[in-house]
């Protein structure tokens, strides 16, 4: 939302119409009750708000009271979506807007477009084309206008935008590998051009990670981890890329690599790293070696090596502030919870795949039953039921895919990321350890010097003095390093949390959008099932009018 950060929710201006209690509207079976969504004056205002935020801020319009008093609702306001209203409202908006000069013609057009779409829907319903419950219509509309807003918003420019596409199998047999196209689009001058692409293979990504982690983690940077190696997955792909499990594997990997790169380039320090630039730009990258260590198990080992070193520390660190300890504990807890959640989501994916299979099998069985049935009407009903269930199978399949690719993968990514966060905390501890060790070495050198002084060996004394100076410098250096790494870790963690919130939000939205879509289609199928049962069952006295009554479709 392009709104200013200190914008207050604009007050809903006072209503002119008499208002009745909300409870009257909540009568489950009344036709008016169903239309509360559309007829609610407050909601009209809300829709206006959606489309013309700046407009509302500057120009109060005569609508109902504030949100904090939900018990009053107007009963008979003019319907927003009636044709006359539409025509009268739109010009009002545009004239007011022009007089304020605060918003563009685009928003006017948007609003007019929305109204036109609504009119179309409404007339469709009145003509009997749509037999959807009004609630669905409203959801659809609300969603539509929301989507328009989102698209406008999404025209943010990125400094660097990377994408990983077009996986291609190169070579044959056991030496085959998959090459991905890495495309970059940027406005920064440090790159050779604005858009370019290169071909990279999986081990190149791992090589990049290795280089980055060696350099950057010493500074306390959180280096995003790449996706894991998978011998099983790759072997299948080497054999053939056509079967569904290989396709899924390659797609999963491609998406994970894309997310990995996006995280790397959105990190301000990493973006400056020459290795990253080379990875994105250079035509021929030297083959990365030693990527064995970066298999899933290898990566975990690396993280754990650092924490083992920390655990073996005999001197316990005396924290000046508890921020680091608390944060570390938080990170550990969160990682545990995410693992648990990931396990459950995995189970959900499997169950949905099972449901998919079982539905398909059931549909076939129903079809056969329908064929056997000797009563014609019933036979047709059963066959139609079978067809609808078949379509449901497709839906379940898609839903399982989105469960997996969006939800489960998000969790897996963050479990790995939290591991990296833990890693950088451990780096800080190592830095502290180094400093302490240097201090104790310095102490020993001083003691040695004292001994030499007492033993009166002038030539060795000189050497000892030199060593002391050296170690004093080292101690200072290590102390500075420790402080610096502490600051970096703090900054990094805060940045990480912000990124995580943003990431979760956008992935959750994506997931919900896909669920919303499939829910809509499930509903359509439910309705067609209902139709099937009723009409093919040849029920006497069940007419389109009574059908309308069931759906509370308003007359006309």
């Amino acid at each position, binding site marked *: 939302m392009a709104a200013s950060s200190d914008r207050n929710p604009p007050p809903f201006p006072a209503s002119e119409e008499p208002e009745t209690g909300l409870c009257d509207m909540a009568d489950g079976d009344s036709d008016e009750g169903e239309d509360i969504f559309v007829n609610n004056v407050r909601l009209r205002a809300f829709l206006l708000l959606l489309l013309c935020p700046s407009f509302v801020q500057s120009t109060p319009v005569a609508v109902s009271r504030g949100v904090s008093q939900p018990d009053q609702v107007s009963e008979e306001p003019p319907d927003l979506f009636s044709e006359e209203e539409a025509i009268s409202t739109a010009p009002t908006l545009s004239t007011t807007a022009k007089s304020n000069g605060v918003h563009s013609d685009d928003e006017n057009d948007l609003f007019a477009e929305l109204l036109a779409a609504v009119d179309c829907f409404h007339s469709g319903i009145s003509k009997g084309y749509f037999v959807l419950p009004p609630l669905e219509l409203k959801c659809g509309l609300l969603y539509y206008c929301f989507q328009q807003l989102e698209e406008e918003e999404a025209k943010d420019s990125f400094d660097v935008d990377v994408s990983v596409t077009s996986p291609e199998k190169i070579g044959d047999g056991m030496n085959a590998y998959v090459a991905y196209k890495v495309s970059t689009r940027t406005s920064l001058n440090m790159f050779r051009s604005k858009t370019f692409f290169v071909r990279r293979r999986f081990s190149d990504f791992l090589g990049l990670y290795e280089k980055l982690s060696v350099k950057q983690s010493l500074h306390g940077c959180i280096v995003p981890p790449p996706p894991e190696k998978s011998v099983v997955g790759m072997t299948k792909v080497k054999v053939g890329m056509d079967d569904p499990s290989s396709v899924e594997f390659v797609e999963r990997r491609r998406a994970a690599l894309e997310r990995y790169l996006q995280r790397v380039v959105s990190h301000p320090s990493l973006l400056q790293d020459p290795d990253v630039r080379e990875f994105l730009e250079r035509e021929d990258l030297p083959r990365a070696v030693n990527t064995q260590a970066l298999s899933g198990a290898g990566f975990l080992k690396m993280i754990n090596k650092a924490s083992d070193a920390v655990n073996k520390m005999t001197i316990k660190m005396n924290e000046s502030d508890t921020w680091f300890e608390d944060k570390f504990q938080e990170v550990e807890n969160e990682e545990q919870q995410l693992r648990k959640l990931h396990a459950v989501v995995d189970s959900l994916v499997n169950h*949905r795949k099972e449901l998919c299979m079982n539905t398909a099998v059931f549909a076939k069985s129903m079809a056969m039953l329908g064929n056997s049935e000797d009563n014609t009407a019933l036979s047709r009903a059963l066959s139609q039921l079978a067809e609808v269930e078949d379509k449901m199978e497709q839906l379940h399949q898609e839903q399982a895919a989105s469960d997996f690719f969006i939800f489960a993968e998000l969790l897996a990514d963050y479990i790995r990321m939290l591991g990296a966060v833990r890693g950088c905390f451990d780096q800080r501890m190592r830095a502290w350890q180094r400093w302490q060790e240097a201090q104790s070495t310095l102490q020993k050198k001083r003691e040695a010097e004292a001994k030499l002084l007492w033993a009166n060996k002038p030539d060795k004394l000189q050497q000892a003095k030199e060593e002391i100076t050296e170690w004093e410098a080292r101690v200072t250096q290590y102390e500075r390093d420790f402080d610096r790494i502490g600051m970096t870790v703090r900054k990094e963690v805060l940045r990480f949390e912000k990124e995580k919130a943003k990431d979760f939000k956008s992935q959750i939205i994506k997931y919900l959008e896909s669920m919303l879509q499939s829910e809509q289609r499930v509903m359509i199928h439910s309705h067609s099932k209902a139709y099937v049962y009723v009409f093919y*069952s040849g029920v006497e006295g069940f007419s389109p009018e009574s059908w309308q009554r069931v759906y509370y479709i308003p007359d006309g």
Partner: protein
Amino acid sequence: MLKATLKTKRLHSTQSVSDTPHLPQLSREVKFTVHTKTTLSSFQKPEFSVPRQHEDFIWLHDTLVETEDYAGLIIPPAPPKPDFEGPREKMHKLGEGEATMTKEEYTKMKQELEAEYLAVFKKTVQVHEIFLQRLSSHPILNKDRNFQIFLEYDQDLSVRRKNAKEMFGGFFKNMVKSADEVLISGVKEVDDFFEQEKTFLLDYYSKIKDSTAKAEKMTRSHKNIADDYIRISATLNSLSSDDSTANKKHLEKMSDLFEKLRKVEGRVASDQELKLTELLRYYMRDIQAAKDLLYRRARALADYENSNKALDKARLKSKDIPQAEEHQQQCLQKFDKLSESGKKELTSFKGRRVVAFRKNLIEMAELEIKHAKVRSSIQLYYICFIMCTNELQYAWGICKILCEQI
């Protein structure tokens, strides 16, 4: 007019959440109360109740099947044994996993389990009641002496049951074993009607058996998904409560959403189970009962043909002709009687089946519509959530109010 209804009395109360509900270990722990209302003079009182157990129903069914006079009738299928295996196993697993769950998650799963247990209970009652209602509405069967005893005798029936077992023992089972062979062995069918019925029923039975099994699997998958939603909701909740960043409210709302979703999924699963799967299951058993009728008739036909052969042999040997003739006459009579009543029964069975399918499918339609409404409201929830995450907080307030009204 005879009307039998069924009430049940559970042994243990599951009101308080703190107790672990004690699931019946054996079927005899489920006690039914059979309540009868009648205007027939053959009963002592116009209204009365007796306690019965599942085994009593089975005894009644078996005695009816063994009665020669009813060979030409479709005997309503016996109600299946109350099966609490599913919920019991789940309860066990839940108990084992209690340590790994939060209190909230545990409570929710237990509630879900109790609901499942209740559903099984309801189903069991329904199926036993339908059995009695079929009997009481059948013009011949409702006059059966044993049926009357079942309804009226206010003492324990277990003594009678034991006697019956000793009498009939494995006879019934033996008959069922050879039944398929009798039917399929191609005893020459003289009547087109029965030939068609045989083909139809054999085919339909195998199809409906298959559909029942597949429907069960599908319903179970739905239930599994609903259970997963509970766990996801609970984990998201604990994640959000520990979270101190901007993520917190996103996770909270996701948790809310999954909670709503699981209710819908659970209901969809149980409605599907009750209407579709139960329907298929019941008619599978009913068709088996119809097949049993065909078997009995086929046996009678075989007996008749054998008696014919015996008569011919006797005539050839000129020995025992009168007995052979009489035997042949008896077999013919029996066969004719079976054919006549069988035809009537099978025709009415057809009509009954179509009506029942139609009724259940329409009820399913109404449930689908109801669920569609709930789904609509959840969609609205989704949208509001999405909008809310874009900082339209005041929009959230409105939409929440509207959601609550739906």
